[in-house]
């Protein structure tokens, strides 16, 4: 025991923080899984578990771009959409050959991440030349373009393989036994649900592993150096474009993986879901959790996802209250006076605790 404790204190603050994050996720999982298996969890909450995991992962990924790399991205939902549709296509194609849901889900997530990563790379190369708000608007533009193209995308599968088209289903020229996978704006319908809470938690942990290790690596330090002072970083011989691109593509790929999990959790998904509003929602999670703060993102995404559901009893006033809460939280956490007030209270509490400890 003592050894463990010793080892713990000998760890750097960063890795300790990392382990605490894993701990939080695992504790969350254990609590909710046991509640689930004893059926003592409300339907409402149990239905939200997978989406919570999805949004936590996407928000963590966005935090990598916004917090660590310091670029405002407003198109995160686009990558999620790419991942979601890829995941659905992969899962539907494999349905006949692999009947095991979890294995199919793994394939779907891997492919979702890959394609979204490629999309991220293609978009990142031109985009990352821009800076600040211009970069933000271009990511917004790409998000909208992805949505728009998904809206015109028709995909089917038959014995000859996959068919892609931009006009409509009949023009795909499929054989009679062909299955329509994506039907333009109607999206994918009749998806077999294979996402599970366990898969979601594993994805969250994987994301944490990737992001925390990235941050604490040489690459991560280079990325943060660019964020803090681009010119100084450049002068030190850091390849700005390369490192920015690493952060951006990693973020896109993770968002794609989460998208695949998301797509396979509902029996239907439509391109419209992955629009600007969803991107903004994810950004809200990141900013409210504290830019660059991993644990904050974990908590903010979870709490903010559940909040509108908890407000359901207010009926018509639900979204109004949500808006007010959002504004108030931003004011309280970002206003100097409010911050000082909170700090003072915290210090007092700590003092009291310390006294009690004596």
């Amino acid at each position, binding site marked *: 025991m003592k050894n463990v404790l010793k080892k713990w204190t000998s760890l750097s603050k960063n890795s300790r923080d990392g382990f605490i994050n894993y701990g939080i996720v695992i504790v969350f999982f254990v609590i909710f899984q046991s509640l689930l298996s004893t059926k003592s969890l409300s*339907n409402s909450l*149990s239905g939200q578990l997978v989406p919570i995991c999805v949004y936590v992962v996407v928000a963590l990924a966005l935090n990598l771009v916004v917090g660590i790399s310091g670029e405002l991205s407003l198109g995160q939902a686009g990558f999620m959409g790419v991942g979601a549709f890829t995941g659905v296509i992969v899962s539907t194609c494999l349905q006949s050959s692999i009947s095991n849901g979890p294995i199919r889900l793994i394939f779907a997530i891997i492919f979702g991440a890959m394609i979204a990563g490629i999309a991220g790379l293609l978009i990142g190369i031109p985009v990352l030349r821009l800076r600040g708000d211009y970069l933000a608007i271009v990511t917004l533009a790409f998000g909208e373009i992805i949505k728009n193209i998904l*809206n015109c995308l028709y995909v089917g599968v038959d014995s000859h393989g996959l068919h892609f088209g931009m006009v409509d289903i*009949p023009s795909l020229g499929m054989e009679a036994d062909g299955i329509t996978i994506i039907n333009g*704006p109607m999206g994918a319908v009749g998806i077999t649900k294979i996402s599970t809470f366990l898969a979601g938690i594993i994805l969250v942990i994987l994301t944490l592993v990737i992001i925390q290790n990235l941050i604490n690596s040489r690459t991560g330090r280079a990325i943060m150096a660019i964020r803090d002072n681009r010119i100084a970083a450049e002068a030190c011989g850091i390849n700005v474009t390369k490192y920015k691109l690493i952060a951006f593509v990693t973020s896109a790929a993770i968002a794609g993986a989460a998208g695949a999990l998301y797509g396979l959790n509902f*029996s239907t*998904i439509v391109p419209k*879901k992955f629009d600007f509003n969803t991107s903004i929602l994810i950004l809200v999670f990141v900013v409210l959790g504290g830019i660059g703060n991993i644990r904050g993102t974990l908590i903010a995404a979870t709490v903010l996802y559940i909040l509108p559901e908890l407000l359901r009893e207010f009926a018509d006033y639900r979204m109004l209250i949500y808006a007010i809460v959002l504004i108030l939280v931003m004011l309280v956490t970002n206003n100097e006076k409010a911050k000082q007030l909170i700090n003072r209270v915290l210090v007092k509490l700590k003092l009291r605790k310390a006294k009690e400890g004596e």
Partner: protein
Amino acid sequence: MKKKLLSVVLAATMVFSLVACGSSESNSSAEGASSESVATTTDASGDVAPAGDGAVTGTLKLGLIGPLTGGAALYGTACANAAQLAVDEINAQGTGLTVELNAQDDEHDAEKSVNAYNNLKDWDAQAIVGCVTTTPCVAVSAEAYADRMFMLTPSASSTSVTEGKDNMFQLCFSDPNQGSASAQYIYDNGLATKVAIIYNNADAYSTGIYQTFKAKADEIGLEVVSETTFTDDTANDFSVQLNAAKDAGADLVFLPIYYTPASLILQQANTMGYAPTFFGVDGMDGILDIEGFDTSLAEGVLLLTPFAADATDDLTVSFVNSYKSAYGDTPIQFAADAYDCVYAIVAALNFYAEKNGALNVDGMSYDELCEILISVFSDPNFSVDGLTGEGMTWTAKGEVNKAPKAVVIKDGAYAGM
């Protein structure tokens, strides 16, 4: 004695409710239905069999899912309002059955809709009216299918809503029905030689009708000269689409879209001096009631709709009046559909009770109620007269059978064709 008295009262109220469901235009059929129900109920009260008195008792917990906020709030709110109206009426009748309604917001989003559904399950809902819009409905019906929860949607019209799910029924026409019926109607009545279509390609409802319309038009030889689209993000300016239709010489423009963009299309066509025949579908209903809309612009517009708010039959008039006095707006077709949904579910319970003696829904589990409702709705003898159709029956697939009505807008009001 008490029981007998009760059954007489119940029989009377049931007759009343059935008459209320029928429309005066079809007095004969409504009377037929009511006399039937009188016959069955007297039968039931006549032999004092242990089977019961053929009445439905208890409290039914109905959930409703629809967009109450966001861009599609209009449709969800109309449904929630009208369903509440129907529930209040049923409760005021004082039969043994009371209905509780809980409307939950889904923001026209599949994910939120599933959340809303789960929330309703926590509330112990026994059946669902909804979802109002197609995409959420596909998502929720899959959940409900796994759970065995009965769903009757007022307005989610895509076939993918009901496909492969025996617990899911529609009260509105399905998209293929509407699309091909429209093409057939245009062709049969020689309304046009060249047709242009403007549809919303970001909307499942609109694209669904467009696809079936196009297929039918190709099949019967109706020439489609221009097909243009818009999305919710570009639903402001229709000059390009209208010019394309005009340049192609279309004499009829088919608008399988909702009435809000349709009103803009009419206004812009008028500004540019283009006056073809406009042909709409059920989503077009409501266009005359946009506050401040110049109804002369809609003169001559044809639409295929099961409900018209200015129809003069008693049922529609009383519904429109009570809706107006309760909520201040003229009800749109969605409202009528949702109103019918509530009555259809109650009628189904009555139907079952008559056949099987009695039915107490108090605390009945949703899967138990689901099997009952499925059996009734797939029963070819079960028919409902409502605002949106007389003698509506359902196929086991979940689609409704009712006749589409074509109406034309004349002097700012609907007129039958």
